[in-house]
């Protein structure tokens, strides 16, 4: 940094040619970036890409893992479940985060599945909505556009505003598959790119409903029952609440040592009880 500021100050002391100054700047930038570029190649590096749902959780795991093991580097990127799996098969990453199961055309028989958490999707409404329970048929009707007024499901006479996730979302894929029988949600639905934005949108929009991972269901919105069952750890574990899915880490065959260690850490009791349990249901004891 010091050399850059020297170069910038030089017009007072006599002007080196423009080229020389530009070259110096580039040289300094290269020098600075060299160590970063080198570290990517080392054996102690785990490269991860995939689901944006899993990104905060895995990033947190990576930070803790690196604090614990100074000789390891874990690089986590998003991109979406499909991108992660594609990059895993191309050998670009060591681990693919996925918020869904493998599709048939992705399964080449070599990918290993590591389940790291159970995610429960809660149907949430704006606190002003006076409905506590929706049947399976009602949920499907609302999200596909057949039911457009709260009056039809026992609420007040007000239009229903549906909030859904974007097409790239594993949460949406799972919700469409289980709750909507693979039908698409209504075209007027507001699309949001993350759980957090769904929460804010539902919280601030009267007469709205949407769906989020249960860890995001806080006091600003209200989680309602699905077919008479409240979303939660117990109901998801015993199978009475159907809107749940496993979150996965895929590796290509048996993972390398560094990747193996990281997955072991993510599955460890410490990480599962301290971090995973804040938003999801831990897989230990399932």
């Amino acid at each position: 940094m010091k050399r850059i500021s020297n170069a910038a100050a030089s017009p007072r002391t006599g002007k080196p040619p423009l080229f020389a100054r530009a070259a110096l700047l580039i040289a300094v930038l290269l020098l600075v970036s060299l160590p970063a570029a080198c570290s990517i190649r080392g054996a102690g590096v785990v490269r991860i890409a995939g689901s944006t749902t899993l990104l905060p959780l895995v990033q947190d795991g990576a930070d803790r893992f690196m604090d614990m093991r100074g000789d390891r580097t874990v690089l986590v990127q998003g991109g979406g479940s499909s991108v992660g799996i594609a990059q895993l098969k191309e050998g670009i990453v060591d681990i693919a985060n996925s918020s869904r199961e493998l599709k048939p055309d992705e399964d080449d028989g070599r990918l290993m599945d590591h389940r790291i958490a159970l995610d429960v999707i809660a149907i949430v409404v704006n606190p002003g909505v006076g409905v506590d329970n929706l049947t399976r048929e009602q949920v499907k009707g609302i999200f596909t556009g057949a039911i457009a007024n709260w009056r039809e499901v026992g609420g007040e006479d007000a239009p229903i505003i549906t909030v859904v996730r974007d097409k790239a979302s594993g949460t949406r894929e799972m919700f469409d598959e289980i709750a909507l029988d693979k039908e698409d949600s209504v075209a007027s639905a507001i699309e949001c790119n993350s759980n957090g934005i769904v929460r804010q949108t539902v919280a601030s929009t009267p007469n709205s409903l949407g769906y989020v991972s249960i860890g995001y269901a806080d006091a600003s919105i209200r989680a309602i029952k699905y077919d008479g069952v409240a979303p939660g750890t117990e109901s998801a574990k015993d199978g009475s609440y159907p809107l749940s899915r496993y979150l996965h880490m895929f590796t290509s065959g048996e993972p390398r040592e560094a990747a193996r260690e990281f997955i072991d850490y993510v599955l460890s009791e410490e990480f599962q009880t301290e971090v995973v349990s804040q938003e999801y249901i831990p897989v230990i004891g399932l």
Partner: protein
Amino acid sequence: MARERYIKVLLFACASLSFLAILLIFLFIFRESLPAITKGGFPNLFLSATWDPDKGRYGMLAFLNGTILTTLGGLVLGAPLGIGTAIFLDQVAPRRMGNIIRRGVELLAGIPSVVIGWFGLTILVPFIARVTNSAGYGIGAASVVLAVMVLPTITTLSAETLRSLPPELKEASVSMGATRWQTIRGVLLPAGREGILVAVILGMGRAIGETMAVQMVVGNSRQLTFSLTRGTGTLTSRIVTDMGEATGVFRSALFAQALVLLILAMLLIISIRLITRQKER
């Protein structure tokens, strides 16, 4: 002399690099959007309003409609405000007050769009929702946000145009007994017409390309609508919403939307050229 030549070469390199960059971007976007045009089909892509990538429907009309309506809405609100501010700055305001307002408008140009969008999301959308008893998202909210964003462009360029008019024009008008308002309306605005038009078109360019702020308040729906308070999307908001996991023809269809944006931008540039050339004659 050698140094002179070096600098010349350096500047030439800069210029050709930026020209090359725009050429490469254009070629790249065109190439990437080809699969959608050949496999999806032209009518499916450009003449349909059904966006359902799972079923191979890539109609972009709903989003093109959203882009055009939000842009026009932003200009309807922003252009009179901007031109009015410019007239005030150049003709009415005392020097110090004018300086303060000018700084304020320039500051507005520097506010990142995500901040304006967030403001719209937390203040504007709930307000519209309360007043109109709707969700609040839609073309109306996006237009207001865009009006704020085009305001600095239109104001500064219009003010610049007015300032560059020969002072004799105003002096002659006033000495003929015209009032200030008559001078502004009858002499200065017609004389600066081309420059103000260019200012509005450049503002339009900004509005068409704006992504973040619009995405936050437009509702991000797939439906074609002309209503101000129903959710819809724009070309840019759709690209940024779906690009995360789009592959194959789906991805290519998004690039086709980018191509349409690029063509819109080119049309704007061409229209500016036509206007300024007309003036030179």
